[in-house]
């Protein structure tokens, strides 16, 4: 996917080369086009309906509404595993947990946490409200916590 976007960028660059005014370097100019392509790619994912299963961590209604579901309560983690965070296996496990998220959650989580886009920028490009963004981030992070607990910290 990343390679396709790079190819697209060069192609767009060539096509509109005569609009290039030389006020910035070619590299800056092409990077700006690439950033646009990345955002367009995310918008395309965003417009698809989420298919993957969403795990709920809290009671949705009743008198316990908003409380932790018993089977999703955070467990104590093994202290020895908490120390070694600069670990390649841990990074791989993290990747696989992120990939297990519904596509839209994974996308918003990556944009915000890994690529460090601004909240405002994500909201604008994906046409969601800040409130929505935090709901998505919250669901993604609670689900990731559970996944990392099951596969890493609780063994």
């Amino acid at each position, binding site marked *: 996917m990343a390679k396709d976007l790079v190819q697209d960028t060069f192609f767009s660059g060539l096509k509109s080369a005569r609009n290039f005014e030389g006020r910035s370097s070619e590299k800056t100019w092409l990077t700006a086009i690439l950033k646009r392509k990345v955002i367009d790619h995310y918008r395309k994912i965003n417009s698809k309906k989420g298919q993957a299963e969403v795990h709920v961590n809290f009671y949705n209604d009743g008198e316990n509404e908003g409380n*932790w579901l018993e089977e999703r309560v955070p467990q104590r983690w093994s202290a020895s595993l908490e120390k070694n*965070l600069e670990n390649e296996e841990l990074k791989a496990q993290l990747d696989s947990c992120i990939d297990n998220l519904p596509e839209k959650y994974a996308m918003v989580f990556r944009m915000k946490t890994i690529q460090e886009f601004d909240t405002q920028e994500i909201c604008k490009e994906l046409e969601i409200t800040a409130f929505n963004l935090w709901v998505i981030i919250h669901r993604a992070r609670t689900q990731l916590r559970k996944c990392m607990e099951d596969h890493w910290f609780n063994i």
Partner: protein
Amino acid sequence: MLKKLTLTCNEATTICDKSQYNEATFLEKMRLTVHFLYCKLCKRYTKQNLLLSSCYRNKSESIKRENYALTTEEKETLKQALHKQTYK
């Protein structure tokens, strides 16, 4: 009145997630602190969340450090593809 001041665990952990990006408001952080007084689970969630945040940060940094580049063959294929698209 009390209902307005107290948070559910769902709301508390949402604020906790927000504060991982330094985007929780002062009032939200206050309400979270009050919630911790009687909720050990959310306190544990917060501790684990901090730990996970540093994992995510490590990951983000290692991605930025890495030098991604196409291989020579890939560059050649790209050149040919561009050539074809430009002169078709």
